[in-house]
């Protein structure tokens, strides 16, 4: 069974003439223990897909299952609790609360849940992201790369079913970006995590086991463990095949 499954997912913004179809019936599955990327041109619907998959946004049609839970059967409260306990997030920016220290940010989902962190797991995650000496700093005192590593640590802290990453390297220089990708890669390889990442960065996508391509709100293609050149070629092919009238 896949860790994450979207079936005939559609998302409509607005109504009438002004309606925008962000997703038009996307069916795609993500197997557990792999590093997935979602790519596509601007407006292809990749961010919308990620938001729907992660339960941050509700699709207009179709279903999303995380593990064996269908998200459309959950009310806002239950959905929130599912995110809190079983989903990890790394965003492009605004990942951290400025008033909390790095340590407090990392354990935030557990604090919200009123649970104590498992000290062994905490040490392991913190060691993995290399932040042991920065735990009592506030986000404003950390570099962009360090902030993003704190975000990754937070995403891993609850041992989630899936970690979603939305352009995690978009705001970073290439070295920091590579470090963050390496961390996500390690989470998959060493901790058996499932990671789904939206990116438009070729090098980021090249770290992945599998790249799913979206075009115009539809599933377009996918590549297994592609090299950067393969991805370029695929994007070029999709770009050329833009339907008339667009």
């Amino acid at each position, binding site marked *: 069974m896949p860790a994450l499954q979207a079936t005939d997912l559609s998302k409509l913004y607005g109504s009438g003439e002004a309606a925008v179809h962000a997703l038009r019936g996307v069916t795609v599955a993500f197997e557990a223990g792999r590093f997935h990327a979602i790519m596509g041109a601007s407006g292809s619907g990749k961010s919308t897909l990620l938001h729907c998959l992660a339960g941050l*946004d509700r699709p207009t049609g179709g279903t999303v299952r995380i593990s064996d839970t269908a998200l459309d059967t959950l009310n806002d409260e239950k959905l929130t609790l599912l995110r*809190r306990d079983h989903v990890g*997030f790394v965003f492009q920016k605004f990942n951290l*609360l400025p008033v*909390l220290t790095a340590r407090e940010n990392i354990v935030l*989902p557990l604090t*919200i849940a009123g649970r104590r962190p498992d000290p062994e797991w905490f040490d392991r995650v913190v060691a993995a992201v290399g932040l042991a000496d920065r735990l009592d700093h506030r986000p*404003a005192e950390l570099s962009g790369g360090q902030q993003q590593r704190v975000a990754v640590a937070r995403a891993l802290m609850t041992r989630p079913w899936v970690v979603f990453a939305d352009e995690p390297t978009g705001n970073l220089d290439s070295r920091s970006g590579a470090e963050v990708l390496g961390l996500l890669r390690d989470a998959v390889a060493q901790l058996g995590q499932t990671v789904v990442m939206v990116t438009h960065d070729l090098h980021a996508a090249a770290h992945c086991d599998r790249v799913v391509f979206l075009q115009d709100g539809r599933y377009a293609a996918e590549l297994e463990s592609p090299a950067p050149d393969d991805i370029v070629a695929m994007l070029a092919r999709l770009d050329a095949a833009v339907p008339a009238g667009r």
Partner: protein
Amino acid sequence: MIRLTLRTARANLTRSLLSALAVVLGVAFVSGSLMFTEGLAVAMTAHATAEYRNIDVEVSQPDGVSGDWPADMLDRVRKVDGVRAAEKTWSLFNLGLSAGDGRKVIGDHRAVNVAADPRLQPIEATSGRMPGKRGEVVLDERTADREHLGAGDKLLISSFGAKSRTYTLVGLTATTKGGFDNTGALIVMTTPDMEAISGYPSTTIIVSAAPGVSNDDLAARITAAVGARALPHDQLVEEAKNAAVGNAEEFRDALLGFGVIAVCMAAFVIANTFTIVLAQRTREIALLRLVGTTRRQVFRSVVAEAAVVGAAGSVLGLAAGVLLAYGLPAALAAAGAPADVRPVISGTTVLVALAVGIGVTVLSALLPARRGTAVAPVAALSDASVQIARPVGRTRRIAGTVTFAAGLVSLAAANRAMLVIAGALLTVTGFLLLSPVLVPALIRFLRPPLAALGGATAALALLNAARNPRRIATTTNALVVGVTLIATFTLIAKSTEAPAERRAGDKMFAQFLVMDANGLGILPAGVVEALRAQPEIGAGLHPAYQSFDKDSGNEVRTGGTGGPAEGSAVVSADLGLAVGATVTVQGRRFPVSAVSPGTRTVWLSAGDMVAVFGEPFLTEIQVDPAPGVSSTDARAALDRALQAYPAVVAYDHDGYVDHLNARLNQALAVITALLSLAVIIALIGVANTLTLSVVERTRENALLRAVGLTRRQLRRTLTFEALVIALTGTLIGTAISMAITLSALRSVEAHGSRLALVIPWDRLTVLLAVAVLAALTASILPARRAVRHPIAATLAAD
């Protein structure tokens, strides 16, 4: 630039609304007070004018001259050529009034007399007729309505120190007692009746002129003929009007004092709003600067925006002020005060309201505008999403510490009222300066226990509340000032109220106290006989007398329980007499049995007082029931005996305490009501800060929701934040007011009497409950806004 300003103001409409609300309330209060008091002046002027209806000339003693009013003055005036008719008039206060069945009408009643000649009557009957012969009276409609009295009813009326007489009510008049505090009845009687009860000759004569004689001429003729002061109608009206307007202005100034406080609170709120809004607009302002707008232009644009907000607030405030001005007479009428006030909306009021509203908004926005527009153009390019709070300057820290300390020292050492006031002002000012340091420190201190109690949401709320020290300081400052004012008034009032209890205990040695209702300290002599006739209480009377020994210049009084025995005297120490010496009162010698503190006073037994003076003033009577008589029966006997004395009342211990406190409670209620406006504006400031903070933290809140904070938890976090701000302000204000009150009480103690701090928990609880409720209310809208934001869209937005 103007167009941009207007667009910005419109775009920020919701944000401006709350600060505008502060302006609205301040302006409403000020303009409402003006409209009401101008209406009051008109009503009082009308009343003053009506008093002189049908009076062409009034003859009276020149100011400052007493005595020497010839008994035949009326005859002399009547003989002056051009006088058609003339009549003596009295205006008698402190009358006792009760219905024929003995039901007492409590109030400060006034009696006037009218001539038999209708053309010399300033008052006319609106139903029934004017009194025509002795024993007939007319009453004002309002009192008659309230007491369900009508023509044909019997009334008991007494002037002070006298037994009542029975009168028949023959008509009602629309004229009221007049003056500002017109809660008593107006009683109109015939001249012979008035002459009989007044006890002193009239020194005022009203005159009606013969046809063809002008008022001015007649006045001059009378002055020349009789040597008294004679004023013509127009001048009388003019003087009365001036007095009325003067009274209304005094009342207006008192109201405006509270208006100033409210407007100051509004200034706090506005300044805070502009600081926050401009900080949030840093990027926008930097962009304007980047494309070539000068700093001066940006500054002017912000000031213009403040003027727009102020103008809108003033207009709404004026509208609210009209409602307030119309509501106030209705509220006063419900409390029994004059209802015939129609608010006046004058051009001056409108101008004042606009000037106050716009002026306060612009002035309060100046400093924030100066700081907020000092943005380097390059800031447009940087990521300024997280506001960095300006640290508190060293000068402010030092000045604050010094002022605060000086205030506390002054409070601790105060032995005079001036020092207490100075100490209070210094302490509050010092606190206002130090609050960006003190308030966050307090919240940090409270964080661990509250976090342990309230969990993650509470901890987060506390962090958020204190994240910008200046912001929370300004927000709580307004609240601290408002609460300090209210709580200080309440604490001082309640602490000085306690002695009322003690005063009653000290004074009352018997079960009942009989005294006059108007607080004049004189009872009709006949009351003693009336009480003695009642077997239930007749044997337990302790009358108190007071008189004056003309030969020695000493005051002579009855002593209480510790007073001298029959045939002996107690003297005050300053008379220089020792125990065993003798003191002479009205030629009779009494051995001195004790010496007491006091000034030129001799205490005798009640029996000796009557024996020596014949008819000394009866000031009060304490009454004990006969053995075996229940207090209910005693009370009934008292009421029976006092039925014929409308101005005499009997209290038991609790009733007397209530009587002593009644006036204080009423004053406290009025002051509390007027000050609560300041607190309400301060609480609007809390809502304002919270709303703006939520706008600022939209992304953070979305992130929290994404990583698992439920809607309910987010709402709770914001509610908690509002609670923290509101409670911090309220508690600090209460603490400061306790310090001030303690100091004030101690300074009084230094003058002899002892006062303990009484903490009125019920009232403080109400204050706290209001703050909590307001905080909860204040958090509703921001919280709704916060939870409604779609997570995905907010996080994705740049």
